[in-house]
């Protein structure tokens, strides 16, 4: 199966370990990716401070329109923030003819046109529905036996449309973890927002959100947290020092991408493909213990 991959700005930098691991994992599942030619930023969650709704929608309509004009495949977004921006634009433009006309007047400035012929999908949707649990199970030659993982879903990963999973009780992340032999722990805070786009500017408030998520993972016996979004990963991993300083806690919980765990389970190289050395809080020890290496 062929797809457009919309990595966005983060997957080239802070979320690099996501990109490095998702490519070989998806390849092993028979997926092929093409980059959207000359793509632009999706606007993320914070652009509203500088721009109106129509401008932010324009950013995403441009990316979709370029994809439409260069191929007929679905767009896959691994970052939940990019996903929500693209899927929202796609959804609203497909449903609202008046809005679509407006956007097409705007896109005309760049000789583009939104037709509404493609779907936008989160990487997790594609892994689960196109890769499939059976194929993942049979590819997992090195299952992560007994590894206790808190599968963090976050907020924008399935909301607001719930296109491939429940918006209140999501289960896809846990099913994927099970398929690679891991043991997903109960994790009531799996959908609590991590602070996302206002993290840096409202640090004090958001540190509390991160603390609650980490507390919940630990209380339920998790050895590490799995994520599917570079914003979540960054906020949950990189701010543990600041949480510790503020609350007098002692967190040192590794945070990895689901695709890193999948790469390990698929028997791939722990560095070159699973990119475990990209993690600032090292997960190697725990993971090696699970695979008996």
């Amino acid at each position: 199966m062929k797809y457009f991959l919309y990595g966005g700005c983060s997957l080239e930098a802070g979320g690099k370990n996501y990109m490095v691991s998702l490519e070989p994992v998806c390849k092993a599942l028979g997926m092929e990716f093409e980059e959207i030619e000359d793509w632009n930023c999706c606007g993320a969650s914070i652009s509203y401070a500088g721009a109106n709704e129509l401008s932010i929608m324009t950013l995403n309509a441009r990316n979709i329109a370029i994809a439409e004009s260069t191929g007929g495949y679905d767009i896959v977004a691994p970052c939940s923030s990019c996903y929500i921006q693209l899927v929202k634009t796609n959804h609203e433009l497909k449903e609202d003819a008046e809005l679509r006309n407006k956007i097409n007047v705007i896109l005309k400035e760049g000789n583009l046109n939104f037709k509404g012929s493609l779907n936008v999908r989160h990487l997790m949707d594609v892994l689960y529905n196109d890769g499939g649990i059976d194929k993942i199970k049979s590819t997992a030659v090195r299952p992560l036996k007994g590894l206790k993982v808190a599968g963090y879903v976050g907020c924008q990963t399935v909301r607001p449309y719930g296109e491939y999973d429940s918006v209140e009780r999501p289960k896809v992340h846990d099913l994927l973890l099970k398929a690679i032999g891991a043991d997903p722990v109960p994790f009531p805070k799996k959908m609590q927002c991590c602070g996302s786009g206002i993290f840096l500017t409202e640090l004090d408030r958001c540190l509390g959100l991160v603390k609650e998520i980490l507390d919940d993972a630990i209380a339920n016996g998790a050895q590490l947290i799995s994520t599917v979004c570079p914003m979540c990963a960054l906020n949950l991993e990189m701010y543990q020092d600041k949480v510790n300083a503020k609350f007098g806690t002692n967190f040192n919980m590794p945070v990895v991408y689901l695709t890193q765990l999948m790469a390990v389970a698929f028997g791939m190289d722990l560095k070159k493909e699973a990119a475990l050395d990209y993690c600032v809080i090292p997960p190697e020890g725990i993971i090696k213990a699970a695979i008996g290496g």
Partner: protein
Amino acid sequence: MAGNYDPSFAKEVFDNVDSGEEIKMCMQCGICAGSCPLRHEMDYPPRQIFTLIRAGRRDEVMNSKAIKLCTSCYRCKVRCPRGIPVIDVMHGLAHYGIKKGIIPRKGTAAFGGEFWKMIYNIGRIDEKTLPLKYNLLEGLVPGIKSTIEMAPMGIQMFLHHRMKLLPERKIKGIKELRKMLDKAKEMGKGGAN
């Protein structure tokens, strides 16, 4: 803030704020407020913001920190029984306030402003330089202090290959993108300003 009563405020919101007209459907059930992760930090949770708009309480609404504290988690939108995109209204109000120069949460407004400027200038976000630019907006001395405070994080990211070393370059179609964005600004609700 005594909060003067301004009977035209509701209409102003319906007409000029992105998604502002959506609140006409609100039945004041409070589900959005109960679902919001930062509700304890908000002076008025979303439901109350909508009441205040209808009551013409312009000052309270525009100066509320609630409308700038939205993390964009979409929980309100998912749960609202009337299908109101509460999040879009909150963002619309925040943007409207900033346009009018009412900026009670300076940090988020400044960060978002720099974020947008970078998109307009190069079409993408450069994760290295954005926090730096944002910190320097505080002024040189406090800016350098914040940058140094955040430096250990940057160094860790660098050591773990998670920093893109080359500066982000302009996308090829930047000229056309800017033309589109200018047009979108003009055609958006409430016009170019």
